[in-house]
């Protein structure tokens, strides 16, 4: 378990992390999200001691991460693999040698049959057995990130830290990488912490997320809870919620669908029952992992509002009047 308590950090006079407290459980895929500059990468780098923090505490399985205690930090770092946005492979080493590199830092001979078997297994896991002896410059972005993932797993970590790991990749390739991360989480039981500003990543793999804004944790929870009905303006901005192009006459009513919501013909039923017309002016349905979640904005006349709300309540649909 990663336990972050009241962590504070400043770069000179700029406070980048303010009183951050987060608990990350074993075996989960946890997202740290927010706009760029929110402090999420800094927080991730504090977890494995690439960066120090000024106040508070970070513990991994009960062991304090302290950048000044080099010996114990090193042992902690062994338990945490890390991948990066720019892949960070050694240009002069081929795929196999890149994967083997962390072993060399730990004095583990990489030429024993067991070590070779392990490296090969990881290269197979990420699907690069045919590229084994190619250099990074001969690989595509997605392939490079796959090498980096294999490298991050070679010391048998319990945790995998991903710093904007898919931000430099196109959507199709991102999907593949995310599927791989999910597989690693499921099959190897590795806890994964992803830092990202991409909603796709959150939706596809994160089981829980912390939303960071200007160095503060604004909200923590399941992504579907956080993003289907966000109350915080910052999260709405992040999601680029409705707002600017809604009709200015009448009232705008927003309906929320959690999981099963899209199975029922709510809008047409309401229209028939109330014997009036609605203008559907904004909608979004999204897959969060397995389920579909979403929201819908209806524009209606002021006089229909009360009846509409009563109808929605009777069907257990969550709603909200959008204030102008």
């Amino acid at each position, binding site marked *: 378990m990663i336990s972050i308590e009241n962590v504070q950090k400043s770069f000179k006079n700029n406070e980048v992390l303010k009183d951050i407290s987060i608990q990350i459980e074993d075996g989960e895929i946890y997202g740290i999200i927010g706009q760029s500059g929110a402090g999420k990468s800094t927080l991730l780098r504090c977890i494995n001691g690439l960066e120090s923090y000024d106040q508070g505490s970070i513990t991994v399985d009960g062991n304090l991460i302290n950048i000044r205690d080099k010996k114990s930090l090193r042992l902690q770092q062994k338990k945490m693999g*890390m991948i990066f946005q720019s892949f960070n492979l*050694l240009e002069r080493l081929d795929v196999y040698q890149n994967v083997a590199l962390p072993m060399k830092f730990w004095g583990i001979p990489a030429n024993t049959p067991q070590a070779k078997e392990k490296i090969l297994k990881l290269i197979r896991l990420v699907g690069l057995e045919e590229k084994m002896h190619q250099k990074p410059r001969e690989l595509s972005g997605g392939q490079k990130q796959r090498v980096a993932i294999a490298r991050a797993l070679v010391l048998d970590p319990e945790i995998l830290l991903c710093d904007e790991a898919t931000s430099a990749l196109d959507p199709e390739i991102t999907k593949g990488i995310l599927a791989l991360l999910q597989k690693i989480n499921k099959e190897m039981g590795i806890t994964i912490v992803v830092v990202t500003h991409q909603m796709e990543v959150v939706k596809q793999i994160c089981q829980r997320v912390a939303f960071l804004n200007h160095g503060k944790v604004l909200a923590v929870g399941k992504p579907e809870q956080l993003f289907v009905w966000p109350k915080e303006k910052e999260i709405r901005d992040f999601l680029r919620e409705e707002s600017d192009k809604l009709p200015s006459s009448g009232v705008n009513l927003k309906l929320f669908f959690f999981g099963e919501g899209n199975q029922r013909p709510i809008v047409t039923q309401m229209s028939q029952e109330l014997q009036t017309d609605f203008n559907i002016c904004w909608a979004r349905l999204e897959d969060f992992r397995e389920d579909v979640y979403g929201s819908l904005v209806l524009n209606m006349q002021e006089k229909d509002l009360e009846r509409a709300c009563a109808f929605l309540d009777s069907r257990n649909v969550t709603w909200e009047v959008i204030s102008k």
Partner: protein
Amino acid sequence: MSGILSGAGMTSVVMKAFNQTLYMVFWSTLFSVVLGFIPAIILTLTAPDGLKPNKIVYEILSFIVNVFRSFPFIILLVILIPFTRMIVGKSIGTTASIVPLTVSAIPYIARVFETSLRETNPGVIEAARSFGASNFQILMRVYVKESIPRMLNGVVLLVISLIGYSAMAGTVGGGGIGDIAIRYGYQQYKTDYLIVCSVILIAFVQLIQMLGNHMYKKMS
């Protein structure tokens, strides 16, 4: 008759000089690469973006490197005469000229290696740190390993400029191709010597450059 004699004489003179050039350039390159590597490592470590940033050490060392680099070689040659005598026991001759050649090349190689090392992708260094690599491991397995082709390019440049400098070493009795070109070709108006020496130097530089390019491609 005299033409044939002159030809036979020229071959042996030029061959001897070429060997001297090779000898001076080889040893001064070897010594300066070994000795220049040390300040290059210190500069890389203590640079603002290094593993152990230390402004004072970096600035002082950097200043010393600049001072030695700003001496014109011909002046360094003269200033170093006592030092040369101390090291090799004499201040004249081919072996003696290796000393000023090396001294002038050390700060050059230090700077070239420093630049090469510091061009290492900082992300790769960070990745190594994230796996628990020690500073020494990062230095050898990441910085040096990743920089070898760039450093090799620097050595090629050094060899070529040492060929040029070794011509000046002729003034302290160092001999070599350049010395022959000046003494026979220029001072004694023997144009054939001048041409032969120039052609040899051109071919030699081309060869070194081609070899360097080939190795760069193979290594990177």
